[in-house]
């Protein structure tokens, strides 16, 4: 294939990956930024979103588009409620101690994964895309749905930004993030805020999964890759920085797309991890992270 179209395809693939990655990683970053909890179970909430999407679309059974829209609402909501419940029953009781919560979220990871294995089963199941249109360039064909994913992801990210920067809830979240004790002193119900944030983080991951599941398939082991990539993105972008997370997601997603197309996917992973190492050495707080006092 000629260089031009080759690069176009690589960029498209990279953009889809960036979009989904940005959504997933923003969820992880939000939880860390506000709660200082490293959520190792984040990838499982992603998987939960995909599996719930399969269940919802199968249950609705009408036109794929109807099922998809219902799934886009129900799956993140359900994943969010489960996450909030996990926060109230487990993390709260550990007083959000950073080390204990890592171990606790590892436990949550296995519980979610095994419950899905026992109920949904070990098979990969496809979810039909809301529409099956393709467009053809003279060199290759491409699914229009993938472009739709990029569009929706941008809208959702804008929504998160509006929520954080323009609303009262956002103000409370930012206040809690800046200084937990002071926020509490001003009458902010910090524990309820934490449950909300943990739920919101999981819901964002689940939403990313609902978008990706018509391209890939729902499978109980699919949470591993998004977790790893989200960590890479969040470390490069700066833990807790939403802007940094999005920029890093685009950087990692695009480079992964382009490097895997022109060279090999393994090289793309090697470079991403190497970048993490350099960031940790030279800018330990990430590209956009603030220096801790």
């Amino acid at each position, binding site marked *: 294939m000629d260089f031009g179209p080759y690069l176009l395809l690589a960029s498209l693939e990279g953009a889809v990956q960036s979009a989904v990655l940005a959504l997933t990683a923003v969820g992880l970053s939000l939880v860390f930024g506000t709660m200082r909890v490293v959520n190792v179970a984040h990838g499982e909430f992603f998987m939960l979103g995909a599996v719930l999407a399969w269940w919802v679309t199968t249950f609705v059974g009408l036109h794929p588009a109807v099922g998809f829209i219902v799934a886009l609402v129900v799956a993140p909501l359900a994943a969010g409620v489960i996450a909030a419940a996990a926060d109230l029953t487990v993390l709260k009781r550990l007083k959000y101690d950073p080390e204990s919560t890592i171990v606790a979220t590892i436990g949550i990871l296995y519980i979610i994964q095994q419950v899905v294995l026992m109920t949904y089963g*070990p*098979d990969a199941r496809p979810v039909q895309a809301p529409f*099956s249109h393709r467009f053809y360039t003279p060199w*290759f064909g*491409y699914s229009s749905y993938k472009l739709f994913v990029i569009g929706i992801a941008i809208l959702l990210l804008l929504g998160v930004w509006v929520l954080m920067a323009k609303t009262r809830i956002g103000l409370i979240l930012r206040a809690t993030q800046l200084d937990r004790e002071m926020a509490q002193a001003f009458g902010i119900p910090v524990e309820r805020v934490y449950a909300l944030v943990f739920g919101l983080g999981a819901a964002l991951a689940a939403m990313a999964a609902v978008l990706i599941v018509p391209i890939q398939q729902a499978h109980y*082991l699919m949470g591993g*890759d998004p977790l790893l990539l989200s960590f890479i993105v969040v470390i490069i972008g700066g833990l807790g920085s939403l802007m940094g997370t999005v920029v890093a997601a685009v950087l990692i997603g695009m480079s992964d*797309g382009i490097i895997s*197309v022109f060279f090999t996917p*393994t090289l793309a992973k090697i470079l991403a991890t190497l970048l993490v190492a350099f960031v940790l050495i030279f800018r330990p707080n990430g590209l956009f992270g603030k220096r801790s006092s």
Partner: protein
Amino acid sequence: MSNKKIVSVSDSRRKALKTLAAGAGAFAGMSTLPGLVGYAQSASSEPIRIGFQVHRTGIGAAYGRWYNRTTQAAAKMINAAGGINGRPVEIVAEDDGTDPKRGAEVVEKFATQHKCDIAFGTLFSHVVIGSAPRAGELKLPYFVVSEGHHVASGMLNRYTLQPGITDVKSQVQAMAPYVASNLGKKVTMIYPDFAFGHDHRDYFSAAIEKQGGKVIQKIAIPPTESSFTKYFPKIPRDTDVIYHVMVGPAVLTFVKELGEFYGPNKPQIFGFIDSLEAVDMASPGLEFLDGTYFWEANPRYAQANQTSHDKAFRAAVGVDDNGASVSDSKDVSTYSHMFGCWETLYTVKAGMEAAGYQGPKDRAKLIEAVEAMSHIPLSDEHPQGAKIFNGKTHQVFGHQYITKVTNGKLVLAHTTSIEDTLYPDEVDYTKKSF
């Protein structure tokens, strides 16, 4: 504990036991009468325990589900017909998570904890390669149903045999002439980046060159990959034939994205059915496959020339004429692989009967008995077709099938001979010690 109690019983009790023993002896003498022999033997018989290493979870789960159904069906048939050497067969299934490390642990469990007579049933080549050395150390006969060339290549040991399914090297060798003469000479290969895929890469490249063809591009894909479009631009434009073989939970995504990438102007496509095992051919996005070709070890759809043996096999396992479960038409089988479990169990049965197998002390005799097998005729026990077993390489050889997708169904286009699949021996396991 119980032995000590017996020692402490009174004299009168001991006398009573002696009388009983005499009675039993008399009964044993009686039972040498013709017709009573079988009864006397089986009445005191423990079941033959077959450790079934099954991919219940992990990336091989779809195969595991059908391997399990086939194995249970075969065990039921064998038991209904009187078992092996008058003893019933008991399947002891353990999940290995399609993971080599757990595979080795499962083999160990079979030998030491479950006291199994043999281990059996592994498919994924990395699990076989991870488990076989442990089976060899434990001197546990290990009957794999894997397709990998690792058995016949001499990489494993005398305890590992593959008598129920053919290996990749023989399969691709038999495919190459058909591909070169009917589809084209310039081939691009897409395969998973582990032992099984490397077998495809190495042996098909060599085989197509013998036919005057050439593999012009080799695209290796990590087995855990979930998105494939980014690999397709590497397919050269002058490719005549795309040769694809993929495994794992993402196979449907792989084939769908291949269709999206090409649209209507596609080269010839020849795939190993592994790329679509357990996947419904009617899945949305697979329409472009019409007119493309697949290798199948055992045609998924009942063909016009269906044998009575295939019919009986489908009925026993619960598979309909479309290769799906009779109870759920969406639950598509791994038809080109699972017959291997059925045939392997019947080979184990024949081997144990020939060896007069009584228990673990006869394991070496069992292996020698299987090594002595050669021609295996088409039958209800071997419904996929006639086979030739090579005792030196521990590998079986058989017919291969090429089917063409026609109106969403796989229709038989070509059947190879067994001779097409033979190659010179690379090892003589019979010269290795037990």
